């Protein structure tokens, strides 16, 4: 291990200088963070951790869509963040059909909420499949940057649709989740809201992992991601598999949109783009193309954001997030869980 590390890190004088500087910076930041956390006390730390995990769960759900699409067609799907916001907007619009409004609450909301999740996830999935069909599939053999530009175009289009539909301002999102704090042993309290969000995100992620690992379609997806031509020769319908990837990714993003609304109680047409960039960072952090990696990256980014917000200055949080992204890529280009993939 040490041998391998030495072999990869200290190859040339420039590289070793860069690496030494990098390690020093990471050490300083880490020591500073640990110091502040120790000063802050246990209960504050666990409260922060709860927020971080909840936010991380939402990031993870969005990151999964980025990582699946990138894994299969090597496209950074910039429209994904806006599909996520569309989920929040759509669920807000169809909520009355399920008898939900801003006065709902208690255990009675579970069943209607389940219906709301299913309908919204299906809607987002269909929208994303349509986007793939219209804007990405015709360009599959075009120069590589062409679909990237249509992705940006689709992102602007979706933002435009939501803007025309509901205006540019923050929309209030009803609050169904309980406000209580859950007491754990040893003076540790975590908001019930955060726990619910984490549980929903985990359930969806476990479902996805099982689906990709066990089902035939999941197998087809993995095969297509690995080698599209070979998969086609084995009789896999490539177009259907790619469409299915967009379908599942968007369904998770739609669910993420509802959770975002329920957790923050506010959503705006332009929220998704920046949120999507951070989620994409999470996907890269975990190793792009790697599904457990995206989930791990999402939770880690959530925790980093919560710690930065809670112990450092809020206005520097995004800087930390993207600085970490650059650090990870410089020192471990394949992300935390990514494998070294040969250049195609």
């Amino acid at each position, binding site marked *: 291990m040490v041998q391998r590390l030495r072999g990869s890190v200290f190859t040339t004088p420039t590289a070793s200088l860069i690496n030494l500087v990098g390690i020093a910076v990471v050490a300083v930041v880490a020591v500073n963070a640990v110091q502040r956390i120790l000063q802050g006390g246990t209960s504050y730390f666990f409260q922060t951790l709860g927020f971080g995990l909840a936010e991380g769960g939402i990031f993870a759900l969005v990151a999964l869509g980025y990582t699946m699409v990138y894994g299969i067609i090597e496209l950074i799907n910039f429209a994904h963040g806006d599909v996520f916001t569309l989920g929040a907007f759509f669920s807000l619009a169809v909520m009355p059909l399920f008898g939900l409004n801003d006065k709902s609450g208690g255990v009675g909301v579970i069943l209607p909420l389940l219906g709301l999740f299913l309908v919204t996830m299906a809607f987002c999935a269909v929208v994303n499949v349509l986007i793939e069909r219209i804007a990405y599939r015709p360009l599959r053999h075009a120069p590589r940057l062409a679909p990237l*530009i249509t992705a940006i175009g689709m992102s602007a289009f979706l933002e435009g649709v939501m803007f025309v539909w509901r205006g540019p301002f923050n929309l209030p999102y009803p609050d169904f989740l309980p406000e209580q704090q859950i007491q754990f042993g040893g003076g540790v309290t975590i908001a019930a809201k955060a726990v619910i969000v984490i549980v929903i995100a985990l359930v969806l992620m476990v479902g996805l992992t099982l689906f990709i690992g066990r089902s035939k379609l999941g197998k087809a997806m993995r095969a297509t991601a690995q080698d599209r031509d070979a998969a086609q020769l084995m009789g896999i319908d490539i177009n259907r598999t790619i469409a299915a990837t967009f379908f599942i990714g968007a369904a998770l993003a739609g669910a993420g949109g509802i959770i975002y609304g329920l957790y923050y109680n506010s959503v705006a047409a332009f929220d998704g783009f920046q949120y999507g960039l951070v989620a994409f960072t999470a996907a890269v952090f975990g190793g792009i193309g790697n599904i457990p990696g995206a989930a791990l990256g999402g939770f880690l980014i959530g925790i980093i954001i919560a710690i930065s917000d809670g112990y450092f200055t809020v*206005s520097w949080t995004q800087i930390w997030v993207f600085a970490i992204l*650059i650090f990870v890529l410089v020192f471990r280009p394949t992300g935390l869980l990514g494998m070294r993939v040969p250049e195609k």
Partner: protein
Amino acid sequence: MSAAGAFFRTRMRSPNAIAYTIMILAALFYPVIVQFATNGSGDYLVGLAADGGIYMLMAIGLNVVVGFAGLLDLGYAAFFAIGSYTYAIVASNHMGVTPLGHSLHVPFWIALFIGLFVAATAGVMLGAPTLRLRGDYLAIVTLGFGEIVPRVFRNAGVWTGGVPGISALDVPTLPGWFVGPWVNMDFAWVPNFRFTSANLTAYYVLMVILITGVVFLVNNLYNSRLGRAWMAVREDETAAAASGVNTVTVKLLAFSIGAATSGFAGAFYGAKLSYVSSENFGFIVSVTVLAMVVLGGMGNIPGAMLGAFVLYFILFWLLPNAPTQMENLASAIGLGSLNTATPNGWPGIAEEVSRSKYLIFGLILVGIMLLRPQGLLPSQVRKQELKHTADAVPAGK
């Protein structure tokens, strides 16, 4: 007869020559035509073209990175920001209010090049550790850099003016300049001329000169040994390295030349606007410039310029003017009632169109890309090369 035919045929084979000719003519006659068409009040439109030139410069620079060397840069606006802020720091009273306590007033012509060098240095510093990365990882690193830089400028407190930014920057000065009817004055030679918003034609002329210079330099680079090395790295990095191309140096040069052009444009932008703020350098700027390059035709200088022109025209003239135009249209065809807001949620056609601008922009981007995936004016050399490969490789590969 045959000579004329040959001339015609070679011209037809080289769309670039036609594009350059049209652009030179358009650049020369644009201010005259605009002033005639608007009876001498077209200064605003000339200034708009000078602003568009900033995007054109950036598109030319990004074309070196993305089009020539094949490195995807999603944080190009960062270098633009660095150029602008450098200009703001070395050419305003701002340094007087910082702990430094002494304001700097470097003349525009030198500050322009300071902006260029600082941006190029930033490019080298970002590129040196990250250009070892392959393909899209570089894109992601540049994306991160592009997100970090404006935020650092916003958070750096007194040094960069924080959220409000830095204002009242120095304007360019010259020993003398012509004024004439285009600024509603008689023909005269003004000594110690200061570029102000009252004479935007001066900025326009300066911009045309800068673009001409940059195009000339970049075109020479493209035809040099370095340009061929860029193409080799773009098409197959491993093969290029095996053929003796120092890929890291070559990529680093492309990256820093791109950054330098952006910094150059940024310094001009700061001087023209006389104000810098971190709000003006977001991801959307990087994306817009990238869209300009891809839309125009990657790897082709006139293509990138055309893309910059088309997209700038859509974003800064067509869409901002669309609401008024639609209002006039509605009145003209007898649907004037659409122009007023109604209680049931209709905000009036102007407001509706104004809200739809993102939607329209997105549709235009998708539409152009679907119709011409290779760009409006693609690189002829690249086309030839790819055609050659397609012929040489037997079917089935």
